[in-house]
């Protein structure tokens, strides 16, 4: 089927197979910041925002995303103009191998949109779909707290 995908503000007309997962579509289109991990919706490496809602792109059939707004981590900030969440992750040492980081950053973004001053319990609940095999999560939680503080100040 033909369809238009809105990705990070750009519009792309593409052909899709009816059984194609959004993760594969995005990576084939060059959005390799969307990482392929478990393909089971368990690890959070492939997280994106679909109409602003955090979802596992490996658990979304691409055809159901036609006409909807897709945001990957590159839609939040760039190398030269990073998002405060991305800065907080770097500053607190919440990035080691970096494979889980795009998903962590997007999960943090989705959390802070609804809860600008989250409790530690809310942070843990919001990031329960993200696995990290390096950091042990302590630094990641610190990064979320720092980002929340900075974003609240900016607001």
């Amino acid at each position, binding site marked *: 089927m033909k369809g238009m995908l809105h990705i990070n503000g750009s519009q792309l007309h593409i052909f899709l197979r009816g059984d194609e997962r959004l993760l594969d579509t995005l990576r084939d289109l060059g959005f390799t910041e969307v990482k392929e991990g478990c393909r089971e919706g*368990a690890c959070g490496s492939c997280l994106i925002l679909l109409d602003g809602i955090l979802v596992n792109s490996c658990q979304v059939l691409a055809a159901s995303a036609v006409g909807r707004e897709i945001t990957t981590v590159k839609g939040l900030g760039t190398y030269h103009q990073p998002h405060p969440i991305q800065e907080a992750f770097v500053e607190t040492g919440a990035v080691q191998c970096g494979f889980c980081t795009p998903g962590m950053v997007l999960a943090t973004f989705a959390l802070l949109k609804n809860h600008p001053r989250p409790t530690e319990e809310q942070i843990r609940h919001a990031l329960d*779909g993200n696995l990290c095999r390096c950091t042990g999560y302590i630094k990641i939680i610190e990064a979320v707290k720092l980002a929340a503080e900075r974003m609240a100040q900016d607001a």
Partner: protein
Amino acid sequence: VVDAVADVEWYFPNELADVPDILSREGVIPHSGGTGILWGNMTRIRGLMDVSHLDLKSFRKKDDEIVLGAALSYSEAAEALVKPDHPLVQSLKSAATEPLRNRISLGGSISMFPYWSDLMGPLLALDARLSLVGGAKGECSLTDYIEIRKLRQNTLITSIHWSDTPWQCSYYRHTRTPTDRPAFSLTVLLQKTSKRVETARLVVVGCKGRYRKLTEVEQILQGAELPQDPSSLLDKATERLELEIPARMGFSAEYLKACVIIELRRALEAALESNTGRVS
């Protein structure tokens, strides 16, 4: 499996009136969140009917009934219900993970009903009813929907509703880690006066036959006077329990049954002793 199948056709109806015709086509099933479809075997699927353009995300209170649109995700439904102690909210918030809770829909979850379902225990205990269109239309009880195959064929669930009665309640899921699928889940709903238990509804999901309403225990509890020490009542209630749970996730069948009894006692003890327990 998904990558090996022939192409799947998609349908995007805007009106409920178009649904029966689409679902009558061979191999066409409804698609809401799609997570269950991706977990299953897609080789028999010829078409998917996306329900996102239908008005199936509503939440309303009608008289003393709560009505939830079947396309609501777990997160949306939990947010709409507001009450944090409602058994359904407890189950929806503890199921899967945040991004999956944002995607899994109520209707899809009911139609798939895996043994690890967090949703079904509370809905069965609440005696939920479903509105349907397609192969079957009108209303039916959730129990009938599960038991009668014909009600599920070529059918779309449009809403889920139940009576908004206050309950003393608890929800327990048995897992190794919080994001595990539960080996079993237990829902306990109780209504009592200062003197006796009025109504009890107890449901285990994950046992043989996927779920069981523990009517033998409910019968002992209903009408029972509230004792100073509930131990003897709980002994009597749990002695009667007839339940088979298959061994799974590294747990033996005997161990899981013992866990059900322990958790059932804990839940009932809290509900019987507390005047300030969870009331939703």
